Structure formats: structure tokens, C-alpha cells
């Protein structure tokens, strides 16, 4: 399988502290790759570096073979790299309908059209309706996002990334904060993502990780600790030590 | 040439005393206080009344201006400003502009709209020459007083308990709270002292800057320039920025009078374009 996303010696320092220290990661096309590690290991920093929210102190990022290290965040999205956020980052004053429409218009290069009215392109409307239905948002599509229950907002968070039609999707703890009885709805939509979309998942919940991932990388103190198939990682005594140590500390 | 440098330094020192309170409130609470100049004006007019009307000696007027303005600052902080800390920057801007307007009109009503001067003792008038450099006595006094204040502030910040609490609070208010520092109390005290210093600066500066009801509007821009150019992470930043602005403004007005205040606005915009966080901000991590 070809590698779609790769980092080479990625580093990020905050002041004197290295949050990410020389991470070289390869993610294969169509993979369900999980990035795990104890709190403060630098997982979210890696995502922020990959998406261009932060600039790396050193190292390179390659998307489908091309160097995107210096590319602005919005340009990376146009190249097919989308993400969700651990804490919802939504447009609270817009409706889900507008939110999804926005992403689709942007992808089609119509986002800066200032004369055409919204909703006049039937293809866009069709796609909006399709995505909203897929993420169980049809019944709330006219409501203000800020007024939606948390579970629905979480679904919209993922739907919005999907509306960008990414080749590579970065999911930052998709089920974080969602009550137990609503989790399955979110996990089901994650599991149903099209096979050609490559997914990098950050997750704390080991049940989710082992039921979803076909490859796991463990990040500890900003460095890659173990990288392999789920069974290997599960057996690795060092991983057990890290997690056991953490739970003893807690 | 050296005279201009001297005048510029005096001017810059004055700006620093006027603006350092604003810099700390901005850094500490991320609060945009456009009404800072109103406190400076209050100090100026208080001294004016004490010295010109009540016949108090000039040097007695200055400390009273400091204390009185600090008290006014504390009063406003506790009664009005506390309600606006958690609001958006737009609200803060509107609120403090409102205060500026009110103070301008109120002072106009009470004191009249004409420009006024505080009577300074004759010892301080005139100039003398050292090694061919013309030194204004009054400006020398400003440099001495402001220089002492700066050193005192630096000492307080670097080696007292309050100073370290203040620095911790500016660094990261949330962490400071976690360490058991009462950030609100630190802030109130700082706000009062900052206002007091502005009042003192207003009293000292009346001779050079002129004093009339539009003072807060006229000099607000200068204070803001000092703060944005200097950054808010320390007091050395605003200090250096004050000197830079002071010297540039005096030199600009002397050498290219046609361009007036043009010089410092241009400096500000260039600095902000190159270093949006300020000239002396710590390495941009955020």
C-alpha cells in the first residue's frame, strides 16, 4: 500500500520544552491508523502540526508525496487533508445546513462568489442533504448550531470534515464527552466512513482503538514509542508499563 | 542634536510613567482601557487646583496627585471596570470610550475648555548648558523623577513578594490562580498604582504636553502606541518603546516639522507589521 501521509523528524518546541521530538510516521492509503499515548504525550500537537495550525520547529510533512510543511492550513484542506477537533469548533450562529453548505461550496471553489445567492446550485443542495442524512442531522438542519444537544454537535463536527471530501481524515477523539448511550451513533458513522478515506484516529478509549484500528502508533513524551499492528502493540510489555504507570500515578 | 536627544529622552520618560499602568492592565487582564488618559488628566487638574488656587508648593502637589488619582482609579476599578473584564474587546473599547467622552465633557464643564498651565517654581524654569548641550531644568527634573520611578518599579517587580505575584499573574493568570494568588486583588492594586502613576505623569507633563479637557483623546493614541510597540510581557518593553517614541517624535517634529506626528505613526505601523506582538515581546509561542 502506498504511503499517503508521512512525517520526517517532526519536532515542536514550546519555550524549552519539546512537545513533539522527532516523530517519523508513515500512514498508508486506506489505513485505519490510531495514535495513542498517555495524557500530554503530544498527540494533539502532532495533529496541529499536520494541519498547519502550528509550524514545526524542525522536520517535514509529506502529503501524497508532496512537501506541505510550509503550506497554509486552508491550502492543506484543499489538497485533501481534513480534521475534527477534540473540543468542538463549530460555527455556533450558523445552522447545520449552512455549515455543511459552506464546506461544500468552499471545496467546489464557489466560496468566494459574492453575486450568486446561496442554494441556487442544485448539486450542492443535493450533497448537503445527503451528508446531513448520513450523520442523522436532517431533523435539526434549520436550527442554530449553538442550540443543538452535544451529541448532535459532535456529529456535525465529523460531518463538516467529511464535507471537505478528504483523502486523509484526522479524528481527534471523536467520541470525547459524548454520553454512553449516544456513543454508538458516532462510532457507527466513523466505522462507516468510505474505505478509500485514510483515517488517523487519536483516542483514549482502548475499546474504541482496538475495535477500529488496523495499525497503532504509541506516542510517549513527544516521541514514537511503539508502532505496529494492534496485536503486537497489545502484547508489548513496554506499552503495558506506560499505561500501567499512568494509571498508578492517577 | 544632543539637546534634541535630551528633550526626547525627557519626553519618552514621561510617556513611560504615563503609559506603564496601561501596559500592565493590558498584560494582566487583557483589558483595553482607552480611558487611561482620563486618569492622567485627573492628576493634572488636581495638581492645578492645589498649586494655582490653593497655593500649595509644586513638590507637595505631585505626591498628592499620585495618591488622589490612585484612589480614583481604585474606586472606578471596583465599581465599574469589574463588570467589563470578561466582556469582548469591543465592549471594553465602547465602555472606555464612553468614559473618555464623559470625562472630557465633565472637565470642560467644571474647568473650562481653555489650555491651562501649572505654576512651576522659578528654580525649575529656564535652561543651562553643560558641555554645550542645552539642558532644560524642568526636563532634567522629569528625567530624574521618572528615572527614579522606573528604577523603583523595576525593583518592586523583581525583588518583592508582590512583584513576583504580579509577574506570575501576567505570565498566566490561570496558573497564578491555581497557585493561590488572588489575581483580582493583584489587579486592583496594580490598576490603582497605574492610575496614580498616570496622574503623576499628567501633573508633571502639563508643562510640556499642555493640559486641556481633550487631553485623554489627544494622548490616548500615544499611550496605545507605547503599549503595542513595547509589548505587554514586561516593563522594559514599554520603557524602551517610550524612549524610542519620545525621541522619534521630538526629532521628527524638529527635523521634518511638515510631517508632524507622521513619524511615530509610521514607526508604529511598520513595527506592528513586522512584529504583531510588539517589538519586545518574548519569542512568539502563542
Amino acid at each position, binding site marked *: 500500500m502506498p504511503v499517503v501521509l508521512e512525517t520526517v523528524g517532526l519536532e515542536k518546541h514550546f519555550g524549552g520544552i519539546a512537545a513533539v521530538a522527532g516523530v517519523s510516521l508513515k500512514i498508508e492509503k486506506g489505513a485505519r491508523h490510531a495514535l495513542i499515548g498517555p495524557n500530554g504525550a503530544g498527540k494533539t500537537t502532532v495533529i496541529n502540526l499536520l494541519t498547519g495550525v502550528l509550524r514545526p520547529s524542525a522536520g517535514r510533512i509529506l502529503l501524497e508525496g508532496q512537501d506541505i510543511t510550509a503550506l497554509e492550513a486552508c491550502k492543506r484542506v484543499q489538497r485533501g487533508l481534513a480534521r475534527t477537533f477534540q473540543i468542538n469548533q463549530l460555527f455556533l450562529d450558523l445552522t447545520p445546513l449552512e455549515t455543511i453548505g459552506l464546506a461544500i461550496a*468552499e471545496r467546489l471553489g464557489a466560496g468566494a462568489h*459574492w453575486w450568486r445567492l446561496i442554494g441556487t446550485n442544485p448539486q450542492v443542495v443535493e450533497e448537503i442533504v*445527503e451528508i446531513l442524512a448520513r450523520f442523522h442531522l436532517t431533523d435539526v438542519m434549520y436550527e442554530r448550531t449553538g442550540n443543538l444537544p452535544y451529541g448532535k454537535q459532535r456529529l456535525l463536527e465529523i460531518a*463538516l470534515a467529511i464535507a471537505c471530501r478528504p483523502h486523509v481524515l484526522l479524528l481527534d477523539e471523536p467520541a470525547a464527552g459524548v454520553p454512553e448511550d449516544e456513543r454508538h451513533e458516532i462510532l457507527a458513522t466513523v466505522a462507516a466512513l468510505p474505505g478509500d478515506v485514510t483515517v488517523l484516529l487519536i483516542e483514549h478509549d482502548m475499546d474504541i482503538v482496538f475495535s477500529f484500528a488496523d495499525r497503532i502508533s504509541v506516542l510517549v513524551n513527544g516521541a514514537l514509542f511503539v508502532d505496529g499492528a494492534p496485536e503486537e502493540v497489545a502484547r508489548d510489555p513496554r506499552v503495558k508499563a506506560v499505561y500501567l504507570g499512568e494509571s498508578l500515578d492517577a | 542634536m544632543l539637546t534634541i536627544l535630551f528633550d526626547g529622552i525627557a519626553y519618552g520618560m514621561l510617556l513611560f510613567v504615563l503609559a506603564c499602568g496601561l501596559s500592565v492592565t493590558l498584560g494582566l487582564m487583557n483589558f483595553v482601557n482607552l480611558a487611561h488618559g482620563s486618569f492622567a488628566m485627573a492628576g493634572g487638574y488636581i495638581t492645578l487646583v492645589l498649586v494655582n488656587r490653593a497655593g500649595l508648593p509644586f513638590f507637595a502637589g505631585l505626591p498628592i496627585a499620585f495618591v488622589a488619582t490612585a484612589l480614583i482609579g481604585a474606586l472606578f476599578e471596583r465599581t465599574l471596570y469589574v463588570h467589563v473584564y470578561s466582556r469582548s474587546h469591543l*465592549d471594553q473599547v465602547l465602555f472606555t*470610550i*464612553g468614559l473618555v467622552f464623559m470625562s472630557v465633557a465633565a472637565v470642560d464643564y467644571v474647568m473650562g475648555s481653555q489650555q491651562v498651565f501649572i505654576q512651576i517654581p522659578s528654580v525649575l524654569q529656564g535652561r543651562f548648558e553643560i558641555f554645550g548641550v542645552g539642558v532644560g531644568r524642568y526636563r532634567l527634573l522629569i528625567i530624574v523623577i521618572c528615572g527614579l520611578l522606573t528604577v523603583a518599579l523595576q525593583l518592586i517587580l523583581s525583588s518583592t513578594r508582590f512583584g513576583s505575584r504580579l509577574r506570575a499573574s501576567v505570565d498566566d493568570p490561570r496558573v497564578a490562580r491555581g497557585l493561590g494568588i488572588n489575581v483580582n486583588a493583584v489587579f486592583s492594586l496594580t490598576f490603582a498604582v497605574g492610575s496614580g502613576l498616570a496622574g503623576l505623569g499628567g501633573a508633571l507633563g502639563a508643562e510640556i504636553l499642555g493640559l486641556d479637557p481633550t487631553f485623554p*483623546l489627544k494622548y490616548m493614541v500615544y499611550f496605545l502606541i507605547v503599549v503595542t510597540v513595547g509589548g505587554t510581557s514586561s516593563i522594559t518593553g514599554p520603557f524602551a518603546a517610550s524612549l524610542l517614541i519620545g525621541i522619534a517624535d521630538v526629532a521628527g517634529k524638529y527635523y521634518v516639522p511638515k510631517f508632524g506626528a507622521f513619524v511615530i505613526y509610521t514607526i508604529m*505601523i511598520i513595527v506592528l507589521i513586522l512584529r504583531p*506582538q510588539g517589538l519586545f515581546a518574548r519569542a512568539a509561542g502563542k
Partner: protein
Amino acid sequence: MASALVAEVARRLARRARWRPFEYAFWLAALASVFLLPGRHLILTEIAWLALFALSLDLILGYAGIISLGHAAFFGLGSYVAALLAKHGRGSDLTRLMVTLGVALIMREIANQIPDITGGADGLQGVVVAPILGVFHFDIFGHVSYAYCLIVLFVLFLLARRVVYSPFGLSLRAVKGNALRASSIGISVNARLVAIYTFAAFYAGVAGALLAQTTAFASLDVFSFERSADLLLVLIIGGTGYLYGGLIGAVIFKLMQDWIANLTPQYWQFWIGLVLVLIVLVGRDRVGLWTGGVRALAERLTRRLAPGAAPVPVPPGEGH
């Protein structure tokens, strides 16, 4: 795929941009004022250009969330600087505030330094204005200038309305709501901000030209900080982000200013300041609710007067 649903959604989307009864009522009232209030045309003219200025500010404050203190000055330079700033990394609110203010001050200095053209601090008097289309001469009662300003305001309002309901307008609201997420779905945040800044600059420029034409007088006062602050107040009274805020705010502000100036000619600034302070202490949201309530009432009234009109969805981006 449920094509009925697709059609329904398309219909709902198309209806967003439809004119609401309240809007018809507003512009009919404006039109009526041309004929019914001939004695008030001078102040109405001032209201009209103030409204245009406020509309311009609303475009950047209400739709893109940028605080500007340099608004009265021309944005042309401002947009250039904003572009430079954008290229060199993000600035904070305060940075932007200072840049807009700095640009305004520089423009004022320039105008002050070329008295041959601008008249310096005294302003330019006796600007000779050609009759509109060579036919309509400006008269001292302001009849022609009011009609002229109103037409310009209406045309530019229509344009702004169109832009606001376009994908571009929607993306601005997204940028204002959450710039981080906006860039994470591929929106080039800085390019959009520069675009709307330039667009709003054009409006401010037209408003300034209107002012000069109708009063035959131009002065440095338009560059002043107080003018920009007044403008903010206009917008806050009317509410931001629904286009009518600037227009309604201009009406209320001018009438209020006129009234206060009659009571205390010298110290009206004090009361303006007091209004600002009170608005913030009470909370802009609640003030917005108040104007929103008035609007809802107006809509209900007009709907009763015009039976059969479509039910009115709440306009997007209410309040602040």
C-alpha cells in the same frame, strides 16, 4: 435520495434572501419621508450618509468581526495594511485596532499637510458641486440632496444585501464565528478579510464623497477618532450583523444627538459617553434584544397590514 427533501431545502434556502415585510415598510417609510417631511430634509440627509458610513462599518464589524477605530478614514490604505499584516502572521485584536487607528491618523496628517488641496485644519469650503446628471441642482433646503443620498444609500444597500446572502457573505460569518475552523475547512481567512475590508472601504469612500457633495464642505473632522467612535455607537444602538442596524442606528443617533444638543449644546458629548457606558453595562445583547423586539413588532404590524405574506423566519446573525 429523497428528492422532495432536496427541493424543500432549496426552497428554504432561496427564501432566505427574500424581502421581508419589515424591509418593505422601512424603505416605504424612507420614500415617504421625501414627500411628507420636507422641513426635515437637512437632518435626514445627515442621517442618510451616516447610515451609509454605519453600513460600511457593519460590513466589517458585523459580518467579519473586526473592530476598527480608523473607520472614518479611508479604508483603501487600511486594506493594504491589513493585507500586509495578514501576510506576516496573525495580529491580535489590539494590533488590528492600532493599525486601523494609525492609518486614520496618518491620513489625517497627510490631509493636514497639503492645505492647497484640503484647506488644512480649516477644511475646504465652497466646494462647487455640479448638478446631478446636469439637471438637479442642490438647494439650501436639502430636498435634492436628500433624495440623492437616499437613492445612493438604497442602491448600495441592495448591493450589500446581495453580497451578504452570497456564499462569500456566509463564509464571512463563519470566519467571524470561528476563524480556526473556517481555515480548517479550506477558507482562506486572511484573503476574505482583506476582500470585505476593501469592499467596506468603497462604501466609506462613497459616504465621504456624499458628505462633501451635499454639504459643499469637507474637513479633517471625518478622520477624527471621535467620528469613528460615534459610528461605533450608531451601530451598537441599531445592532450589528443584519444590515439594518446601521440604518436604524443612524436615525436614532441623529435624533438623539439633535435632542441632546438642544438641551445642552456644549456638553452633548457627556451624554453620548453615558449612553455608551450604560449600553455596555446593561449588555449589548439586551440592547440588541430591545431593537430586535421593536423589529419583531414592526414585522407583526406590517404582516397584519399585508395579509397573505409568507411567515417570516428570523433573520440570520441576530443581535451582535
